[in-house]
């Protein structure tokens, strides 16, 4: 249970505060409602590149990191397809430093060619390190454009190609900033040993004078329903074949989102999951296998991905996966299996409610997709998924026409 109080400033900035007096540390989380899905298809990777530039100094403060480190603070950020999230933890008595720093970079970044030049190179190295120079690193670069033809989820947050990053200009950076970074497009969440009204005063003092901006209207193309199975085969210099299959699933606020998530738990949540038991242990077709959802706000993907055992053909592996998925659509989960899935989620949510940073992030995220207090409804929402709904949803998800298959073939050496 995460209790919180919500405030809204006149300029539209939302503030969520959760007091937790059991720790000397405070977490300050600032979420901007802009992600890779808001990018121009010809300039992908921009939201993430921009996140890097947010650490290059702002209009009144030349260095973001130095004053924060001076206050005993630590910080980082991440970008995904839906939003960009900046976070700070620091000793609670220095919390105003976080407000000072975050409000100044919301007010105006120090747009500099030098910073852009360097971060372009850094991000290209990140692209190389995590996607291109690592075995299987490009699976998502292949799978997304296979599963999506139209919606901007068809590219990864890192971008379609390093060339897009190389071409970013300072003018584009400025335009992006003023059309997405704004108090009326952000959620500030704070957790720690704090008094909510004092935090609201701090927010007003530092963020209150930043004027609303014209945030670009989000008008994303809808992904048309998939009407036939898709297959992509690639060959790479890796030691083992990998199979990845993606299925379109409901969006984050749909009640069946929770059903799809529970389905992946039944398939691969822990070692008692069906795919591990049947396909790794019993039939020994895979050496490892996993299933998960992308968790996107718009219609996302449910993924099954596994590394094939030697001398197993793709066709055989795909048939075995299909049998397991089919069974979920035909036979109800037992009460015992369903209860196990509920319990796992309840425990995981409990384990994740320990650190102030986790709590601040959870609150900001739930405010984005609905309201912060809904974080406390998650357990109930998982627990309301019935065996009947699992079957129904499995039938829709695992229809052959809803499947995109990537055969990632190892070069014979």
């Amino acid at each position, binding site marked *: 249970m995460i209790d919180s109080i919500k405030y809204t400033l006149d300029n539209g900035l939302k503030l969520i505060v959760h007091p937790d007096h059991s720790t000397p540390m405070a977490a300050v989380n600032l979420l901007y409602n802009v992600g890779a899905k808001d990018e121009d298809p010809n300039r992908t990777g921009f939201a993430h590149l921009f996140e890097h530039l947010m650490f290059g100094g702002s209009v009144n403060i030349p260095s973001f990191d130095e004053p924060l480190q001076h206050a*005993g603070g*630590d910080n980082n950020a991440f970008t995904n397809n839906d939003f960009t999230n900046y976070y700070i933890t620091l000793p609670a008595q220095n919390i105003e430093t976080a407000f000072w720093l975050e409000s100044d970079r919301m007010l105006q970044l120090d747009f500099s060619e030098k910073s852009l030049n*360097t971060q372009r190179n850094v991000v290209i190295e990140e692209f*190389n390190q995590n996607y291109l120079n690592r075995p299987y690193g490009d699976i998502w670069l292949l799978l997304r454009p296979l599963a999506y033809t139209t919606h901007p989820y068809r590219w990864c947050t890192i971008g379609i190609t390093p060339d897009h990053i190389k071409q970013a200009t300072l003018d584009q950076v400025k335009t992006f900033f003023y059309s997405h970074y704004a108090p009326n497009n952000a959620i500030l969440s704070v957790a720690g040993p704090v008094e909510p009204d004092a935090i609201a005063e701090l927010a007003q003092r530092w963020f209150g004078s930043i004027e609303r901006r014209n945030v670009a209207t989000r008008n994303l193309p809808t992904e048309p329903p998939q009407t036939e199975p898709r297959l992509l085969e690639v060959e790479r210099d890796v030691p*083992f074949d990998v199979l990845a299959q993606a299925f379109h699933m409901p969006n984050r606020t749909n009640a069946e989102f929770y059903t799809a998530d529970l389905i992946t738990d039944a398939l691969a949540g822990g*070692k008692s999951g069906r795919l591990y038991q049947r396909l790794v*242990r019993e039939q020994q077709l895979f*050496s490892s296998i996993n299933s998960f959802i992308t968790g996107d706000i718009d219609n996302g993907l449910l993924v099954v991905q596994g590394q094939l055992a030697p001398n197993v053909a793709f066709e055989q592996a795909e048939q075995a996966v299909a049998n397991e998925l089919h069974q979920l659509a035909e036979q109800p989960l037992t009460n015992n299996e369903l209860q196990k899935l509920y319990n796992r989620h309840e425990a995981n949510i409990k384990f994740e409610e*320990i650190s102030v940073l986790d709590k601040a992030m959870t609150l900001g995220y739930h405010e984005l997709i609905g309201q912060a207090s809904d974080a406390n409804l998650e357990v109930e929402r998982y627990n309301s998924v019935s065996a009947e709904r699992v079957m129904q949803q499995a039938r829709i998800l695992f229809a052959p026409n809803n499947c995109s298959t990537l055969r990632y073939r190892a070069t014979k050496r």
Partner: protein
Amino acid sequence: MNRHIPPQTSLPTHIDILPTAQQALGNRGRIAIVNGGTQDVLRATIITESGSRYQQQMLQARITSAMLMEGTRNATALQMAEQLDFMGSIIETTAGADFSLISMLTTHQHLERTLSMLADVLQQPAFPQHELDIVLRKQRQSFAVNQERVDTQARKALMANIFGNSHPYGRTATLEHFNAIDRQHLIDFHKSHYLDKPIMVVLAGQVGDREIALVERYLGQGNATAAPHTPLLAPPATHEPIRTHWAKPDALQCAIHIGKPTITRRHPDFPALMVLNTVLGGYFGSRLMTNLREEKGYTYGIGSILMPYRDACLLSIKAEVGANHTESAIAEIMHEMDCLRQTPIPPQELELVKNYLMGELLRQFDGPFATADTVMGAYQHNDMDLDYRVRTIDTVRTVTSAQLLQLAQQHLTPKGLVISTAGGPALS
């Protein structure tokens, strides 16, 4: 409000560390208890002297640890997984170079049931052949995949060159070792290193008499014999720098691992060396990050760590850099070490690092689980000397630029360095 003027900040001059209670278990083992927190979550970690340094056969420690959860005399792997998942409890095993850990995360409601499973995992694993075949195949495949990575190759060559191929910390496995390991190796290793040696249990969370009594009941069984510890020393680092390279012509990036043995956590200068290492490469604003990432854009990230072993410690710097920047990156790393030997750290920079570290220390002692991590570190790396943590806090507050300069001249020298790179064309 003037946005040019930072808000006032202050940092505590003193950090409260949650106390650690210690007592003996019935089987010559010990339990350390960190009581605190507000959540209904309990964590117990069993530390056994069963790391890879003790193995007679390569992979013996790692596969024994991986097989503990694959079935006991009382339950199959599937039954165990089902029961744990049903309770929402977690039991995990990991093997290191010196110690192996079995850790448990649960709620008060399921403590007893989870502890009884934990006891089974520790005391009565069955090592079924069928499960062993599956674990070996999975591990063999993920090992083979890792061999393709430049950072794996650079790290292996670093360790082999620092310690030597026959040293327990330096030898590395090959694919063939996966064929040589068998069930009897696991049974033997488990007996000699999990059952016959005393264990340490670190229990954290809201712990009362009931919880301690339960741990005693389930984990206090058996009769270990305490054997004296035989230290494994690192070879002296007196040679000229050694350069190794693993060529992979089409790699986009080169992994650079640079390291040497240095003083261990038992040495009185270690806390100050930790501060020095932070300046060099231990935080986002470090010299290496500023130079190689923020100024030159050679890499996504570079860091320097002091990697502790029970009887040794490595200074280790690593990064993956664009393949055309390898030599410049190495030169810059050597240059940054040189600067710390030549010029005292300016007072402003030292103050910044000290403040950053005070914040880090507050995080390290924030709550029972973080504090228990420091207790586990003390047990594994400096004979359970918990005062080490207080000395670290004092050193961060008081160490001077002059002391750090002297330390840099002793420890950040090229003598004994191994410069290991992987990725890119062969060296000319």
